[in-house]
């Protein structure tokens, strides 16, 4: 009689318990990134830059080198690291408030310069950490603590589509939007992350994977309702799919 482990947490995680709320998909995406780091055998040369937001302590949860940047500035910090340490694999992990509000300039220019870094962008359509304020990605009509009657075009403009904006920048090598609700979606996201890191390893340019993610706490739902709400609402505004792929199939 022998016992085989068929699914177990990846080595590139530190093993520390995540500080996220029950059902929060930040944790799911952390695990997938770590699985890809294991698969590509790059743990020893990977450096991560955590954001400001609920994932501010993300560098604690991975067993790789890492730091945390000022709000929105992770791509600028990552640029410096990668240019100084060309053999390293550098990724930023950023929320929608971090990346698409205060950090808009940094992400657009890092992408346009074709920095050989990878960004994982967690779009939960809200500022999770600070108590559920409106984000640039908040849906029209969606209620948050700073738009208690629902977001309106008149007051707040339109939800920002990060992938659609970035796909026109010349330096993009890989760009995809995914979800992590079902086991099938999770496998697709892992594939996208693997390709994004492969783009960096091959020196092809900047890569980004946007993951539509739940924030059960600030959406005011239980974790399962939040996955359903994401399917019905977030996915309607933000179309999942591949935007740019200069990597090809030869992984």
């Amino acid at each position, binding site marked *: 009689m022998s016992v085989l*482990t068929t699914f177990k*947490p990846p080595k590139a995680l530190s093993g520390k318990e*995540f500080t996220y*709320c*029950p059902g929060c998909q930040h*944790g*799911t995406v952390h695990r997938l990134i770590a699985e890809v780091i294991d698969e590509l055998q790059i743990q020893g040369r990977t450096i991560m830059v955590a954001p400001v937001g609920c994932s501010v302590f993300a560098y604690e949860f991975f067993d790789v080198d890492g730091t945390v940047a000022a709000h929105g500035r992770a791509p600028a910090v990552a640029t410096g690291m990668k240019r100084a340490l060309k053999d390293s694999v550098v990724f930023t992990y950023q929320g929608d408030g971090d990346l698409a509000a205060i950090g808009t300039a940094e992400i657009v220019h890092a992408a346009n310069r074709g920095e050989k870094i990878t960004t994982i962008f967690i779009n939960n359509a809200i500022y999770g950490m600070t108590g559920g304020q409106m984000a640039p990605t908040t849906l029209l009509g969606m209620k948050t603590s700073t738009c208690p009657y629902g977001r309106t075009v008149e007051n707040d403009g339109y939800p920002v589509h990060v992938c659609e904006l970035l796909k026109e920048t010349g330096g993009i090598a890989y760009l995809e939007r995914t979800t992590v609700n079902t086991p099938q979606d999770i496998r697709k996201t892992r594939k996208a992350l693997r390709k994004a890191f492969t783009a960096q390893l091959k020196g092809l340019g900047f890569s980004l994977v946007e993951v539509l993610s739940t924030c059960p706490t600030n959406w005011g739902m239980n*974790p399962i309702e939040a996955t359903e709400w994401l399917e019905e609402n977030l996915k309607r505004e933000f179309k999942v799919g591949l935007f740019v792929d200069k990597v090809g199939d030869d992984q």
Partner: protein
Amino acid sequence: MAVNYVEIDADRCKGCGLCISVCPKKVLRFSSSFNSKGYHPAEQHDPDNCIGCGFCYLVCPDTSVTVLKETSKAGT
């Protein structure tokens, strides 16, 4: 013969229920007891019907699930 089963780290689990909702064989449920965080953790109540698909592992946001397979010498 292969026997599949899962181990759930009850103190790590946050009782979100996502694993229970995706299990195709409905062999997971909330425990009636509380863990150290005050949640009802998930537990496998019917391991005989687990097919080892790993869906519970895949959706768990808190890396609380390990999927295992027991194989006898006679075969797989």
